[in-house]
């Protein structure tokens, strides 16, 4: 705790300075969490009521059930949309965080010159920056943890037809620790951008684009971050791929073990022609490259590791820029 003491003064000033933004952010997060919890309870209630009733979604039943099923499915659809949008907002949060840190927190001080007031008190620029970043870091890590947990719990309160998979971007990206890692990356990129780009609006734009680009790029290569498991089977055999797996690629294999894309010998009207095509190329079966559900944690940890390494790099550069320019 004693190492934090020198940050207390500047951190308290930073809190007071951004009081209204912090209050707004906190209220929005609270409102979001309450709304998601409310919807989750409502959904649980509907599911219980529906299951207690005489109707079944897949069952064949009389006309009396049709309306009830339509209503139930409609409500579940609405609920899954709510979860999806909540997931999108939480996924995009690091971009917003990055823009906030770059613009209002750092660049505005440099642009308006108020940093000169701060740095000529008994506070070194490095401590000033550390305090300014510590405040959003503590609040955001706490907030994101709560929101991620609420969202994960809410996803269990949906009917079986509307479940989402662990590898969906809105689920994977809002799971701890990846979501925490990206939030920290947003703060680090924001601080570096704010120090390099001294104008508030430009810094907001640059930071948002940079963080967004890193997120999209890593998201694109997400499935490559841990070795895929390959399953192969002959046409008459059984594929050993659990249902909750993330199927990354499907293709055909030849007797010699060579992999061919799926669209070789596409099903044609003439079944004989397709069979001949397959035989000509010695295609004997299918392969499925996939991540079983057990890969969730290795994938999460590797991605978080990369993100944290990038965040550390950005933060180191930020402090170095500060030191070089301003002593």
């Amino acid at each position, binding site marked *: 705790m004693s190492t934090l003491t020198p940050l*207390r*003064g*500047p951190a*308290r*000033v930073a809190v*007071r*300075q951004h*009081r*209204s933004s912090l209050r707004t952010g906190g209220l929005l997060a609270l409102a979001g969490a309450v709304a998601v919890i409310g919807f989750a309870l409502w959904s649980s209630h509907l599911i219980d009521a529906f299951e207690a009733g005489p109707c079944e979604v897949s069952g064949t039943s009389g006309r009396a059930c049709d309306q009830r099923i339509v209503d139930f499915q409609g409500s579940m659809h609405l609920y899954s949309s709510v979860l999806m949008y909540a997931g999108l907002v939480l996924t995009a949060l690091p971009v917003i965080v990055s823009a906030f840190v770059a613009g209002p927190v750092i660049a505005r001080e440099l642009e*308006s*010159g*108020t*940093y*000169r*007031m*701060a*740095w*000529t*008190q*008994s*506070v*070194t620029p490095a401590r000033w920056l550390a305090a300014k970043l510590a405040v959003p870091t503590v609040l955001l890590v706490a907030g994101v943890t709560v929101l991620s947990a609420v969202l994960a719990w809410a996803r269990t309160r949906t009917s079986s037809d509307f479940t989402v998979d662990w590898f969906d971007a809105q689920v994977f990206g809002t799971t701890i620790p990846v979501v925490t890692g990206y939030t920290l990356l947003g703060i680090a990129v924001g601080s570096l951008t704010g120090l390099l780009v001294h104008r508030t609006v430009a810094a907001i734009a640059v930071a948002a684009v940079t963080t967004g680009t890193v997120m999209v790029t890593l998201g694109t290569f997400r499935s490559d971050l841990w070795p895929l498991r390959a399953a192969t089977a002959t046409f008459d055999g059984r594929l050993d791929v659990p249902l909750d797996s993330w199927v990354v690629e499907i293709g055909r294999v030849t007797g010699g073990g060579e992999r061919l894309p799926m669209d070789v010998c596409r099903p044609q009207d003439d079944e004989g022609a397709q069979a001949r095509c397959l035989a000509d190329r010695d295609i004997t079966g299918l392969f499925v490259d996939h991540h079983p559900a057990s890969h969730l944690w290795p994938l999460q940890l590797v991605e978080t590791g990369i993100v944290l390494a990038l965040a550390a790099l950005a933060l180191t550069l930020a402090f170095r820029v500060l030191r*070089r*320019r*301003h*002593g």
Partner: protein
Amino acid sequence: MTGSAIEANGLGMTYGRKRGWALRDCSFRLPAGRVCALVGPNGAGKSTLLSLAAGLLRPSEGSVRVLGTDPGEARTRIAYVSQDKPLYPQLTVTDTLWAGRELNPATWDREAADRIAGPLPQDAKVRTLSGGQRTRLALALALGKRPELMLLDEPMADLDPLARHQLMGVLMAEAAEHATTIVMSSHILTELEGSCDYLLLVDGGQVRLGGESDDIVAAHAVVTGQVRDLAPHTVVESRTTGRQLTALVRKEGPVDPAAWDVTEPSLEELLLAHLRSPQAPPLLTPSATGGPSRTGAAA
């Protein structure tokens, strides 16, 4: 010899290759305990010099030492008020003074700050204050810090004459009571004349005059007489009307009172003469030079 408040050695600052040098090859010393006027035309490098001394900028070349150490090391002992008086616009007056206490826990003197900030509307946000009120608040922060060295960049520009008089009085009392060194920049000398006992004239990125105001004035003379050679004295500026010559000279030895009508120049005359004559060599009195006297000799 007392300690140095500021000591510059070959100090130079450039804001980028295209924009030239804001300050170049500045060497001077300001002894502690002085009230120093930092004067010079707009764009002379006054603000740059103060920012360097406050540790906000890193010199491009040379070095500046403040209170016997690095400006960054001396941070807790320096107060700096920059020209545009940057304060957090969304904080109130009370919040700003509270921030001063939070950011200067070791030295904060609430009474000193309140004495200056007293007349301000305490619950008003800084963004609603007038220029003069902001100056008052910025000075309150500076005084509340109880510094050993105050660097004030154009501190009086926004103030009405009454406030200027009052705040100048507070600053002088502070200087007298706590032996605080004060450096005040201005391009209007009359604003500072009478309050300051030390002078630095910066022009074109160079220090051209430095030393006790009295000594600098005493080193010069306005001479009037028949047109003739003024050697060995250094002519800063001269003007002939018919056969009559009037010149401001830097004395090298006594001026012959039989040949010339000699008067002492006013400080303002002296500064204007130097600003009009960029070729006049710089003059630093012994107390304003780091080592033994390098340039000229004071009377």
